[in-house]
């Protein structure tokens, strides 16, 4: 039951909304929790045990960490001597850290077990084959619980924040359970922090027409992106990347461009549906996209694309490494020369290794992370050089021409990154890149080759118009104009005509129904 599935949109979501609204406000959280579990059960009844295990583990670990801190505070408060207080506090913190590490190992272990075990086993077997052909480890296929990459990261962020004493551990089991399993976000994120959404989820909400309107708007806009653009591009993307050896030249580049557009329309469209669905219940989820294709650098792109993942990696990996005691000491000693970039390089390497691995168990994902690591590290190292060059030439880095060049350059780098990302294997990714550039001929535009990749002329027109509308709206938003207040100022007839028009566009131009296969949400697979 994907978020764009008719069963979700026309049965599950309305039913859960009505039931939750009928329940007294103080029990609404329970209704949401039960519907979240029903939603999870609809995918895999057995895998809910994994979710429940993570909930229990997170709940108990949070309480243990906090109780250790509380006991330390109590003992330290009773101690008269300052030195003794310090010793007690250090010991208490160490114990809490051990509890945190144990919880991280358990939760990450579950993630590794279900998501990466097959990958590690396969690679270990290949290594073993090099050493000795007689030994190989059995390949266990456990299946992947829905949304495991999302809820485990949420659980870890909660525990680390409790350890950092950002907030107190949750004592209400149901409240934590709802925060980890809230159905609109469990499949695709955004990866929420506890202090962002837990209180909203637990609190009851009364019906507000504004919530219904803004929720509905987001759902319709998300469906437009997903059903009209992303799903229509799917046959072409599948044709190119499922048979990579048959592709060369322009076909590869068009395939990579289309996949980039498909991924964006699919993921941001789903997030629109997610945010809209939560809004219907009066819950404001954080944004996960901020018009990423207007970015001027790779690092800016990742601050605008899948924001919640980028922020998670920044707060819990990057900061943990770059602000660690050893790194600070190293930083003090090496203020000049290339060595000064070492702490940054180490922190970035860890971030991008995790980013790559988070997306999937495959070498192409690890290389995808490495690709961005190199791009971002290189831009950091070269930044002073750029500054000097621009200063000497007297050019402005804020000129429109330079900005447009940066946006174009970043877009090209992103498309190449997505080509690596979508390729079936790392070897095939390199092959595609090589053939894409070395056998590039514009004649492919004339010989009708692009019309034999699953999209006919009409499909191209729909995709083209869809992208014009999508990026037209984003350009307006990027210029600083807020569309929602403008929409509200329109007379009701105009607003309704706009909504009805967009719904009819989705109904008519959407890639769904008997001539189209069901296209699963792409990020649900990560």
């Amino acid at each position, binding site marked *: *039951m994907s978020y764009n*599935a*008719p*069963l*979700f949109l*026309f*049965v599950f979501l309305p039913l859960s909304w009505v039931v939750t609204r009928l329940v007294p*406000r103080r029990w609404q959280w329970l209704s949401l929790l039960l519907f979240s579990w029903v939603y999870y059960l*609809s*995918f895999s009844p057995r895998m809910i045990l994994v979710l429940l295990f993570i909930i229990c583990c997170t709940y108990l670990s949070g309480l243990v960490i906090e109780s250790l801190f509380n006991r330390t505070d109590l003992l330290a408060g009773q101690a008269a001597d300052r030195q003794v207080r310090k010793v007690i506090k250090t010991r208490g913190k160490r114990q809490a850290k051990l509890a945190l590490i144990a919880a991280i190992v358990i939760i990450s272990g579950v993630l590794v077990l279900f998501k990466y075990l097959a990958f590690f086993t396969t690679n270990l077997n290949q290594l073993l084959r090099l050493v000795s052909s007689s030994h190989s480890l059995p390949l266990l296929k456990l299946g992947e619980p829905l949304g495991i990459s999302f809820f485990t990261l949420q659980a870890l962020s909660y525990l680390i924040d409790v350890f950092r*004493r*950002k*907030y*107190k551990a*949750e004592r209400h089991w149901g409240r934590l359970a709802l925060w980890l399993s809230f159905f609109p976000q469990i499949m695709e994120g955004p990866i929420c922090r*506890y*202090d962002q959404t*837990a*209180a909203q989820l*637990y*609190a009851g909400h009364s*019906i507000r*027409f504004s919530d*219904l309107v803004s929720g509905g708007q987001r759902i319709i806009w998300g469906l437009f992106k997903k059903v009209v653009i992303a799903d229509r591009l799917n046959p072409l993307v599948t044709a190119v990347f499922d048979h990579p050896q048959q592709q060369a030249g322009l076909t590869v580049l068009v395939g990579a461009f289309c996949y980039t557009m498909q991924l964006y329309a699919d993921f941001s469209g789903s997030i629109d549906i997610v945010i809209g669905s939560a809004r219907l219940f009066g819950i404001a989820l954080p944004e996960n996209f901020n018009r990423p294709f207007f970015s001027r650098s790779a690092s800016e792109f990742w601050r605008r694309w899948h924001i919640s993942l980028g922020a998670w990696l920044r707060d819990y990996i990057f900061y943990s490494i770059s602000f660690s005691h050893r790194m600070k000491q190293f930083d003090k000693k090496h203020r000049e020369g290339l060595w000064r970039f070492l702490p940054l390089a180490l922190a970035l390497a860890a971030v991008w290794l995790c980013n790559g691995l988070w997306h999937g168990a495959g070498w192409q994902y690890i290389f995808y992370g490495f690709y961005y690591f190199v791009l971002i590290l290189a831009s950091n190292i070269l930044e002073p050089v750029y500054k000097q060059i621009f200063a000497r030439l007297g050019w402005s880095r804020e000129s429109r021409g330079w900005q447009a060049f940066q946006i174009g350059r970043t877009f090209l780098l992103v498309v190449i990154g997505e080509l690596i990302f979508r390729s079936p294997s790392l070897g095939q990714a390199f092959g595609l890149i090589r053939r894409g550039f070395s056998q590039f001929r514009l004649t492919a535009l004339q010989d009708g080759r692009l019309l034999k990749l699953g999209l*006919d*002329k*009409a499909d191209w*027109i729909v995709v083209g118009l869809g992208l014009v509308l999508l990026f037209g709206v984003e350009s307006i938003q990027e210029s600083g104009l807020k569309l929602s207040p403008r929409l509200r100022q329109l007379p009701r007839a105009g607003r*309704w005509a706009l*909504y*009805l028009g967009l*719904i*009819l566009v989705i*109904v*008519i*131009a*959407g890639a*769904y*129904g*008997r*001539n189209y*296969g*069901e296209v699963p949400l792409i990020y649900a697979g990560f």
Partner: protein
Amino acid sequence: MKHSLKRQPQQQKLTPRPLRRRWVKPARVLCKVSIFTGLLLVLLLGLSRLFTPLQPGEKWSIHPEQDFPIKAEPLDSIDAVMLGDSLGYGDFVPALLWHEYGYTTYVCSQSAQPLEEAWAQLQATLVNQSPQLVMLETDQFYRSTTLASDLSRALLFEAGQHLPVFRFHDQWKQLLGLKQTPSLKALQQTQLKGYRFSKLTQGYNGTDYMNDSGILKVQPVTTYYLSKIVKLCQERGISLLFISMPSPKNYSMKRHNGIAQLAQQYNIPYLDLNLDPQQCGIDWSKDTRDKGDHLNYLGAQKATLAIGSYLAEHYQLPDRRGSDFASSWDDAWSAYQQLCQDAANPDTGGDSSKIGVSEPLYLPDSPDLLLPTTATNN
């Protein structure tokens, strides 16, 4: 820095508002939502009228192509219908059965067709035809992945039954003149009575695929539509037959057992050509077009002849050669033969050298191809 999560402040105890005032706001919301939904429904109904396939005497439609090509066949001229997915239209050749037995059979199949579509095809068929036999290719029984996904698909299907714009929404391509109506492929398929010819060869090198055990049960949504098909066939006095076409990619013993259980439950005969494909002559190195997913024209010949033999043994389908509508069937046979010749002859556009076709094309009197049935009747 220490922070504590702010708890929601306790609700202030206010004097309850009068009941009438409490319901004014929700009633207004409900009213607006209802008007909006009503307007949307009216628009969808209007579009549905525009998008519904053109019926005789109707003008207001942008959908001149018959959605169900079988409707173009003369009244009561079809004696058996094959309902299925790509294993139906790719593996079963009606023209061959016409030539061999004089049977008029028709394939009503679409790519990735689920059983609810088969139900729609059957309903459309029975408007003009009174077949004696309906053959259900069983791959469509396992179209589902999860119950939720099945329910979603069925919901969209039912919506399309009442608001045809959901079913025929793609017809805007024809309205804008961006798609040929009907496509050449569709024309050829209609001429071949629903069969889609394929000369490609990509052999299957896998092992025996029917050596597992257990039962893979058919999902409830599929059984719901199956029971509707069974009921309709019973009402119209039509025999039902389950057929599993040879396909290593789509079949296993688990699936066979699941279908056999269903066949037993509904008392429907079941012919599984996977149990011993060699017996009906399938050579997996040559007879499949995509590594064991579908048969190519060579494999389809063998599977069709095996089915023909089974039908001749178990049913009394009439020999229609010499009837009023025989000419269109003779045309189908000629077209089919021509395609076989082209596929086998590299000089006439066939790429047999590339596809490795080395055996002779279908010869009507070749005893090798007329093999005994491998039917397993459960």
